């Protein structure tokens, strides 16, 4: 540990630009970062509150947002979630303004008072599919904040899966990051192997679609317009089957064991699944393998089918099953490396958080077990799959380790997409 630079032991700083939350803060926070929602509110300049607050802010972020909120129809338009899909449009000025504000909010909140402080070593983490202009924009934002407040000594940006691998202490692994809209499969061996990344055009939102269809089938079609309600239903009742056919057979035979009544918290609404409890398995399976014939009838009824999508030079596969995607990614790496990659598969992100009720043990499984089963079915053995510990914090933790360890003279290079950009010289 003696190699840890004493300055960075105090002033390493991490930023995780997640789709829903922005996790940030210096190393001195210990195990958990500070968290605010990754969103900003553009206040109505004619509002009373805006006038009362001194009309100083164009964009409001962090815990102040509720002070400005008004019950207006244009609320949705004024509330900006800049990273909903992990990528921000180059010309989305309002989204970039929000990013500037949340970045500044975090850095100023933890600006140290010590005289020896010459700026943070900031490592920011963004989606591995983020285009180059996002890197340039983020560097520019930090440069601007440093010019105004002298708070950033050096900045670097790393892909989120690399940060996950660092936090999990695995130097050779495959990280599966499954978020709201897509799933990224990133092989890592000391460095992220960018040419081997496979992206699926499938994420938590697709599981919401099948959950909504199930609600319709159960006679609760009127509720499916409420996205939050559908998500809560999905999270409460969804199950991942070890084998879908066997699980459905079990569910139809042992109806009592799958009987579910879902109560929406804070309301009087109850969703009774009756004898249709077996449908719970359809939700979890869809995340891992949507190509099962059981889903055919839902697509025929108009449920959006995950499609292949081409963004830039990257194809986002729609229907590829999760194990196939891992194999596809690993096969793009050198042959000698492949067995080591299969040995450490890390599942990260909310889309892998599925419960296993004890009475359904063996029929329903957790995501790690499901992946292992699927890999074995494809003839890949000696597979070790794990779920990230503290998934909410792991990217930020990886950023802190990166800030602490990477030498200061390792400067940013666009070809290798790594290294520091030094913003303020040592005095």
């Amino acid at each position, binding site marked *: 540990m003696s190699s840890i630079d004493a300055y960075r032991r105090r002033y390493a700083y991490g930023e995780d630009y997640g789709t829903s939350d922005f996790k940030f803060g210096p*190393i001195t926070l210990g195990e958990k970062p500070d968290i605010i929602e990754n969103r900003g509110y553009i206040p109505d300049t004619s509002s009373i509150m805006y006038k009362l607050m001194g009309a100083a802010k164009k964009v409001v972020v962090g815990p102040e947002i509720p002070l400005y909120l008004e019950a207006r129809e244009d609320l949705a338009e004024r509330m900006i979630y800049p990273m909903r899909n992990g990528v921000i449009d180059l010309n989305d000025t309002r989204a970039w303004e929000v990013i500037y504000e949340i970045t500044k909010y975090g850095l100023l909140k933890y600006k140290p008072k010590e005289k020896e402080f010459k700026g943070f070593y900031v490592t920011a983490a963004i989606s591995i599919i983020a285009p180059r202009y996002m890197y340039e924009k983020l560097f520019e934002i930090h440069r601007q904040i440093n010019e105004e407040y002298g708070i950033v000594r050096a900045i670097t940006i790393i892909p989120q899966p690399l940060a996950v691998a*660092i936090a999990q202490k695995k130097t050779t692994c495959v990280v599966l990051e499954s978020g709201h809209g897509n799933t990224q499969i990133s092989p890592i061996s000391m460095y992220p192997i960018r040419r081997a990344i496979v992206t699926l055009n499938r994420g938590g939102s697709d599981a919401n679609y099948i959950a909504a269809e199930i609600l319709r089938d159960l006679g609760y079609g009127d509720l499916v317009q409420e996205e939050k309600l559908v998500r809560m239903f999905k999270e409460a009742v969804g199950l991942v089957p070890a084998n879908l056919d066997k699980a459905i057979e079990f569910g139809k035979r042992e109806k009592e064991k799958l009987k579910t009544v879902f109560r929406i918290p804070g309301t009087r609404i109850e969703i009774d699944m009756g004898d249709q409890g077996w449908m719970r398995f359809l939700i979890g399976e869809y995340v891992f393998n949507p190509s099962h014939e059981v889903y055919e009838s839902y697509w025929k009824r108009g449920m959006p089918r995950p499609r292949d999508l081409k963004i830039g030079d990257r194809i986002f596969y729609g229907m590829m099953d999760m194990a196939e995607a891992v194999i596809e990614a690993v096969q793009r790496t050198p042959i000698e490396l492949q067995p080591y990659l299969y040995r450490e598969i890390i599942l990260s992100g909310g889309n892998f958080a599925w419960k296993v009720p004890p009475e359904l043990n063996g029929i329903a499984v957790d995501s790690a077990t499901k992946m292992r089963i699927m890999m074995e079915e494809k003839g890949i053995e000696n597979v070790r799959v794990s779920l990230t510990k503290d998934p909410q914090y792991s990217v930020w933790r990886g950023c802190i380790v990166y800030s602490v360890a990477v030498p200061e003279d390792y400067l940013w290079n666009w070809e290798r997409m790594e290294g520091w950009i030094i913003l303020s010289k040592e005095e």
Partner: protein
Amino acid sequence: MTYSALINTLKEYFVKRGFQILVREETTIPQDLLEHVDLLFRDANNIIAVKAVTDILEKDQFLVSLTKATVLREYVDKVYIATSTKYKPFINGRLLSSNGVGLLLVDEEGNVQEAIPPRPVVRRILRGIPKEYIEELRSLREQIGELRKRYSDLVKEIEQFREIASEVRELHERILRLERRFREETISLGRIEKIEESVEAISIPNKEELPSYLRDNPWLQVLSRRGKGR
């Protein structure tokens, strides 16, 4: 010589010498081997088995008897083959000696001659040791094994304590050195208060303890080598 004449002569011979006749059930010889035993005697703690052979027409017949007698040695202390003196030419004495089986020759007048003495079976002596002694030996052996294991565990623990003690001593010395240096520098600069202030200002919660994700993280080494040759 008839079978019964041979048996009676042998009984008389052994009884005269103070041997006690045993019935088959008094021994531990397996059932399938009992048919190859004609007489059983006890001499103190020794059990003696005798196979009476009334006629030896071929050499093979003698060999069959010898083989069975050899197997019997597993269960008794001494084994004899007894036969009429007239069959002496058919008998291979060296074979008997090498297998530890004794030979008794009986003539028409009822005289018995111990032509080859049997070799006592050594392991039979062990069988004579009372069971409780064996049990006690076994338990003592287990206790010794247990004690040996505990002893080696203790030796290991002592080694570890020694290492820890030496590390503690080293740390103690380093603290003393740092304390001395800190005092000297403070005094030489003549601004004790100011230094105390600055120490206060950089204090970090749990400063001595690294967060769990930094402890034993192999990435620290991997990342610190960035730029030093890929």
